[in-house]
């Protein structure tokens, strides 16, 4: 049975939630589910904005048929060719032989790569700034390369002042009936998932995000319709400010994220003592065991906090595996503007500190504090002073950075 929501008089949400998916993109756990949004505009012409993942294809086609009610579907606008938005495109074109695909040149190339059928005669390639008329709705296309694939474009509807924003402003988390952000406690219940989505999926491509924000600033936007997560019709400025901050690699909070790997609990013990000392000094601190918490959550936290401590043992002459993977993942996401402290452990030849420094060394604006605390198997009583001194250095640096963070919020 169809399950739809009206977005405006002429636009209907015909997407769906998936709460059974274990791993989004095969790598990101989605404990709160995810939504695949698709929007149908009914004007003189019927225009569909993207399709959905194959997992929710059945209800999507029921939704589409219900809203179309026998009308032809003149256009499907493909803003993003990633299969979570395009896997059902081939079936759509089979069910609707009248439909023309409207997309960027790179999307047309990818359609040829993802599907075996030749759709080239049914594709209309549009360029930056080009407008398609659906009747009273004039739709203008803007390219948004690498947000977060090269073929991406977004669409502005002049009549309803809607920005169809593709993956930009999207979030993990099923909608659970609330299609609009103002129908849920977004900043309470969804912000962590939005940050995790941003940091892991788009985080590396912040220059293109900032270019998109500049383009969007020139438009009179009343509503934002992303491909995942809720539609924005109220309080968008607060979310936009988060995007501005994330895409500038500015920390949101002054405080410390401690991520540690520990084989027998000795590195963890030192990390715990450091965290206690920081809390005693009034420094907000969060901790993750990198062998337990999924990397995507730690990467999201690294985008949130101003100071990062990485503590890990030496393992096979390298950095302990889970920390090695995390740091390389973090470096691949090109985090910037953070202050980092390293804590290493090794029972006979500690080397993880030097190696962790090497992985993070090239990152822009990342300062690695000179102090590296070295444990030999476990923390000794005579090292407590050194650990406390390290806590003092971090606490002073957090305090010094606070003014910058509050200024950015003002």
């Amino acid at each position, binding site marked *: 049975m169809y399950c739809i929501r009206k977005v405006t008089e002429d636009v209907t949400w015909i997407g769906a939630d998936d709460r059974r998916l274990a791993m989004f993109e095969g790598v990101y756990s989605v404990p709160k589910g995810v939504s695949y949004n698709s929007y149908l505009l009914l004007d003189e012409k019927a225009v569909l904005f993207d399709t959905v993942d194959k997992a929710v294809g059945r209800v999507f086609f029921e939704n589409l048929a219900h809203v179309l009610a026998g009308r032809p579907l003149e256009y499907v606008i493909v803003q993003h060719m990633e299969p979570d938005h395009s896997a059902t495109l081939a079936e759509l074109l089979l069910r609707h032989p009248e439909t023309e695909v409207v997309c960027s040149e*790179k999307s047309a190339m990818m359609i040829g790569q993802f599907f075996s059928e030749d759709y080239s005669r049914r594709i209309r390639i549009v360029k930056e700034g080009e407008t398609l008329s659906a009747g009273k709705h004039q739709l203008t296309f803007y390219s948004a*390369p690498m947000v977060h694939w*090269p073929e991406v474009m977004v669409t502005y509807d002049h009549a309803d002042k809607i920005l169809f924003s593709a993956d930009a402003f999207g979030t993990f988390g099923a909608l659970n009936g609330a299609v609009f952000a103002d129908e849920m406690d977004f900043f309470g219940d969804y912000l962590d998932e939005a940050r995790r989505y941003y940091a892991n999926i788009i985080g590396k*491509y912040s220059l*293109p995000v900032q270019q998109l924000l500049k383009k969007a600033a020139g438009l009179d936007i009343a509503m934002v319709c992303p491909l995942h997560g809720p539609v924005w019709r109220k309080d968008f400025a607060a979310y936009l400010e988060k995007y501005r901050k994330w895409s500038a690699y500015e920390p949101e909070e002054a405080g410390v994220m401690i991520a540690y790997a520990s084989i027998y609990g000795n590195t963890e013990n030192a990390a715990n003592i450091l965290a206690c000392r920081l809390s005693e000094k009034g420094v907000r601190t969060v901790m993750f065991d990198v062998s337990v918490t999924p990397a995507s959550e730690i990467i999201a936290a690294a985008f949130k906090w101003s100071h990062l401590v990485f503590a890990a043992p030496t393992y096979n002459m390298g950095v302990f595996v889970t920390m090695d993977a995390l740091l390389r993942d973090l470096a691949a996401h*090109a985090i910037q503007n953070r202050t980092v402290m390293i804590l290493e452990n090794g029972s006979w030849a500690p080397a993880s500190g030097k190696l962790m420094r090497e992985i993070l060394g090239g990152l822009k604006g990342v300062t690695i504090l000179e102090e590296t605390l070295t444990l030999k198997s476990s923390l000794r009583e005579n090292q407590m002073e050194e650990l406390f001194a390290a806590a003092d250095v971090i606490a002073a640096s957090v305090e010094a950075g606070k003014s910058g963070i509050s200024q950015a919020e003002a």
Partner: protein
Amino acid sequence: MKYVCSYCGYVYDEEAGDPKNGIAPGTKWEDVPEDWVCPICGAPKEAFIAQ
């Protein structure tokens, strides 16, 4: 000199330029217009690093 796109690995070689997109062979990196983008992924010039 060569410059690599940090998003997709495309290499801009000053000697070869990018004639398909109006950049003549021999065009120095600093003379490539600021609105030129990576021909593979559309990344802005700022996303390139010297090889």
